[in-house]
């Protein structure tokens, strides 16, 4: 009897704790979305729903420019770091060559570099040696690769480590070129990891503030930095509207990625699976 009640108490405590945590996590996001539709400005006290802030956000010059810049930067940085990172992860995971361990640590090293330090250093680098790179999409994308590479190498590397290299070797033995063997045997198997790495890299680059804030002038900059700079000046419902659009966009992208990942996984299940692979 007492065991049963103490179990019930524990379950209740657990439910309470989880509800409180969920509230803690979701409340700041919910309040942004709710405020974006609110009719009156901060202290006004007026009521009603309005789309006015969305109209204002989408016609506010730094936000529209920022949206364009952020998208361009994120596409470019994601493309470069996924290609370069996958190449490196493949070499480190599959090919046997001296110096693999130092390389492995080199590729995770950027994680211990504070982003502000990276941003400051690249700013100083551009300003003193390559003035043409300051304030350009390419300059920021180059900087973002530093943040994205460790992540891509880790995710793709983990996926490669879970595969059986014998399959690709068999393709090679049957006469496939290295590139064909990679493209037709290994690539389909690591597609879910590549997809995850791409989506996460894109969002990381798109949302990046700490490095980007150093690399572009305040009037033409990426969207999160433009929002940050505007918030530093004053609070304003336009930012809630833009934030809500960003929340919706991120969730949509994540949902699309989840659906795509499930498709890929289903396709993999229906093709003959790699049998009798390796057990440690």
């Amino acid at each position, binding site marked *: 009897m007492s065991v049963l009640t103490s179990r019930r108490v524990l379950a209740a405590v*657990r439910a309470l*704790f*989880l509800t409180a*945590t969920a509230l*803690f*996590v979701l409340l*700041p*996001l*919910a*309040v*942004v979305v709710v405020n974006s539709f609110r009719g009156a400005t*901060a*202290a006004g006290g007026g009521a009603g729903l309005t789309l006015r802030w969305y109209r204002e956000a989408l016609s506010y010059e730094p936000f529209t420019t920022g949206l364009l810049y952020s998208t361009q930067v994120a596409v470019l940085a994601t493309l470069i770091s996924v290609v370069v*990172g996958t*190449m*490196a992860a493949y*070499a480190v995971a599959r090919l*046997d*060559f001296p110096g693999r361990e130092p*390389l492995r640590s*080199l*590729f995770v090293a950027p994680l*211990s570099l*504070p*982003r*502000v*330090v990276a941003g*400051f*250093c*690249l*700013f*100083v*680098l551009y*300003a*003193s040696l390559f003035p043409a790179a300051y304030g350009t999409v390419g300059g920021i994308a180059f900087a973002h690769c530093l943040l994205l*590479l460790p992540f891509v*190498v880790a995710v793709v590397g983990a996926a490669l*480590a879970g595969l059986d290299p*014998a399959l690709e070797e068999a393709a090679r*033995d049957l006469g496939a070129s*290295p590139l064909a063997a990679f493209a037709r045997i290994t690539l389909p198997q690591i597609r879910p990891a590549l997809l995850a790495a791409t989506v996460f890299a894109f*969002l990381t680059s798109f*949302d990046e*503030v*700490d490095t980007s*804030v*150093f690399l572009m002038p305040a009037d033409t900059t990426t969207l999160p930095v433009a*929002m*940050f700079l505007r*918030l*530093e000046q004053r*609070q304003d419902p336009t*930012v*809630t509207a833009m*934030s809500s659009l*960003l929340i919706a966009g*991120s*969730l949509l*992208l994540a949902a699309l990625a989840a659906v795509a990942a499930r498709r890929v996984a289903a396709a993999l299940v229906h093709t003959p699976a790699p049998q009798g692979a*390796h057990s440690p």
Partner: protein
Amino acid sequence: MNGLRASVRAEAPEPVRSDGGPSVPDRNDPKRRKDPKRRRGYLLAAALVAPGALYLLLVFCSIVLLLLSYSFRTERTSRLFAPFDTGTWNRLLHDAYTADVLWTTLRVGATVAVLTVLIAYPVAWCLLRIRRWWLSGLLMFVVFSPILISVVVRSYGWILLLAPDGLLHGPLGSWLYHEPGVVLALVHVELPFAIVPLLGSIRSLPDGVLEAAADLGASPWRRLRSVLLPLTMPGVIASLQLVFALTVSAFATPSLLGGGRVAVLAQSVYQNIQQLQWPLAAAQALVLLGVALTVLATFNRLGRLADVRHRLPAAGQGEG
């Protein structure tokens, strides 16, 4: 040709390489080293690794060189080739303001790390223990989806909540633009990152140790203190390390929630750039880098000390 390759393979079956461990002995075999196919393998590897490795080396080297050279210039300059000067370091090391900023950074980092892990630990435990799949899936989504959303947006959410007409202004009235508000928002930002190492650590708990402790009559508190915590301590330390390192270098959240009143290192670097005090910013960036690396090294050390698994023969076998 291909047939030949296949027959060579058949004679000397390759060990399965999962993480490079098993294939190491081959490397020292002189016959294999001279094998042209092997050399072609090295070339391919070099070609694949080169772009990323060169990029990282270039950035790291220029970072260290630029920071060092800038920090030895006179305080107010933006030119790289200004005269050599130790005044910046001199000021930094004797200035009460800098010491205050450093202390605030470390204090906020430590508070956030401890609070975040205190919340993250039970969340990770529940995530692994809840049996209804939709509930654990929902919890997973709730806990991890904020990672997808910009830090600026999340910090703004806290500003709205703590503002004079916000939901939480009543109970937490004075937190906005003060340190507690910064800590609160940072806990929110870092929570997902704290959960990941804990999940791994709790999941790899040897089967049945808690049940065994219960059967032997240990109270729940005793099971937590003497079994669960020691066994998952490496995860706790990894989690503390990650949150501490991220918080110490956080920029956007302390700037927005602190409203300029809570000065941390990252923000100070940014402000000095804007006031064209590049050497001061460079020196502070070096201090920040030093703090981050010290945090990582210290916790790595602690993590190794806290790993009690190798001292528990029963647990080691149960894992196999």
